[in-house]
């Protein structure tokens, strides 16, 4: 079910402000692609345009094409709601629904898609998704408890379980570990390794070691200065980016000589 993503000539705006300019890239299926770059370079904005979350902000819009499995996401006839069901997302800070139990949190997306779900089928989905998110053993005895009662790392894995419960084709992760401690981070990274056999994963990260650890390909975004649009500088296999990048700017950023 994993699909590759083709992005061509993508410009992303907030109102009149051009935030990201002419991105062209192909994100391969069943692999992890990391987006790195300095703050404000537009990597999160780009990520959010992949499931049309970008336009949830008033005035935000996109020019250009994003094609997932032959389907152009920004065609006039395409419903953004359908896109988001196909392209799941995990956010920077864990955000389980505060009024719902662990069980209900996992099912939240499914309940939207398919109102009537037999109890046995629902149980199966919950178990499968929580196992998929490496959380099952920790929570199986307290599925009825509120999701907010878990630790930060567990909450984030709950959010991943919630995202994969609807069986999306692509999973977007916006700095999923930035609010977590190293142990939880390592648990999430292990999980990303397992998930890539089934999903196309795009992850934004500020942590270059993390990009090197989890991804097959890395895309480096940069910004010429405040008020200028962010640009894709280079996209290459992660090994190459972190050893012999094509662009001097990439090398400068990776080696810490930012400029």
């Amino acid at each position: 079910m994993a699909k590759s993503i083709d992005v061509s000539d993508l410009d992303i705006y907030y109102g009149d402000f051009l935030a990201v300019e002419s991105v062209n890239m192909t994100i391969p299926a069943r692999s992890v692609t990391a987006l790195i770059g300095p703050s404000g370079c537009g990597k999160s904005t780009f990520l959010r345009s992949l499931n049309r979350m970008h336009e949830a902000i008033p005035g935000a819009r996109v020019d250009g094409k994003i094609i997932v499995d032959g389907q152009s996401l920004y065609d006039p006839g395409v419903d953004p709601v359908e896109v988001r069901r196909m392209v799941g997302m995990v956010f920077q800070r864990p955000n389980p629904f505060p009024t719902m139990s662990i069980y209900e949190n996992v099912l939240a997306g499914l309940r939207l898609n398919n109102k009537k779900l037999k109890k046995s089928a629902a149980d199966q989905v919950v178990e499968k998704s929580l196992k998929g998110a490496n959380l099952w053993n920790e929570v199986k005895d307290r599925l009825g408890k509120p999701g907010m009662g878990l630790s930060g790392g567990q909450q984030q894995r709950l959010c991943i379980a919630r995202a994969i419960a609807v069986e999306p084709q692509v999973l977007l992760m916006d700095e999923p570990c930035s609010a977590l401690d190293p142990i939880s981070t390592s648990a999430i990274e292990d999980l990303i390794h397992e998930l890539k056999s089934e999903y196309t994963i795009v992850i934004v990260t500020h942590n270059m070691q993390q990009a090197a650890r989890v991804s097959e390909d890395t895309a480096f975004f940069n910004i010429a200065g405040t008020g200028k649009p962010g640009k894709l500088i280079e996209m290459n296999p992660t090994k190459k980016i972190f050893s012999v990048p094509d662009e001097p700017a990439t090398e400068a950023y990776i080696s810490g000589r930012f400029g």
Partner: protein
Amino acid sequence: MTTTPAAPPAARPKRRQGDRIFAGLSRGAGLFILVALAGVFVFLAIEGIPGLTQPSSFYAPQASTFIGYVTPLLFGTILAAVIAVIIAAPLSFGIALVISHYAPRSIAVPAAYVVDLLAAVPSVVFGLWGINVLARKVAPGYEWLYEHLGFIPFFAGPPSTTGRTILTAGIVLAIMILPIITAISREIFAQTPRLHQEAALALGATRWEMVRLTVFPYAKSGMVSAVMLGLGRALGETMAVAMVLSAGGGITFNLISSSNPASIASNIANNYKEGTPGKVAVLIATGLVLFLVTFLVNFAARWLVGRSERRMAR
């Protein structure tokens, strides 16, 4: 043997001037509310308790005891207020939601402003409008309801020809409590964490599903508070009801006839001027009943909200 110097007094963290003043001010404000509330209660009790046991002529013509006197009024008060809340609450939530989540900013801001302006209209004006415009317009509607839905007890009729019924009073009250419910729920809807809303959207929720999944659960206790404030205002509202409602005396759920009781507050307003001391005591006693009922309603609401919050807490 050397003398040890006296142990210094236990060091206390230095309290700054600003903190002390602010703490004093806020404590004072909190106490002031309690004192005012207690003062109102004491006044009502001292002045009103003699009203509980006046000679039966003071409760005439409809009753001979205080209970018999106050029961229809209490019923009228609650009925009018409940009608108002039933009409106003869904409408207010809808308006608040449009302003906070649906309308573009260029429409939402003026709309919010207009709704707030409604709160500035004096209740006498609402009363005049109720008598002169609304009551006349709805009277034919009541005829229609009687003819077509007369089998429902609410519309059993005979319909009032003037339109000055408890339902009309309820509609006027609804418009009066609309701004406060709208303003409070709007504020709370707008405070729903963006993170939760985006979580719902990213799962493929439509806008309405997002509202149901994140905004309402987050805002629930605030919505109850908003309704309670509206209900409190409707229970105590005087002029509009006194002007609009042409009161009969019976306890009935028949909303479109002219046989409904007045509300406590409007009854006080209508009778206070010509009252003898005994009659005034009776009226103040009804005020005491209203005070207690309002208090109980608020308490019940707090308890309900608190219960649902406790259930979700670990």
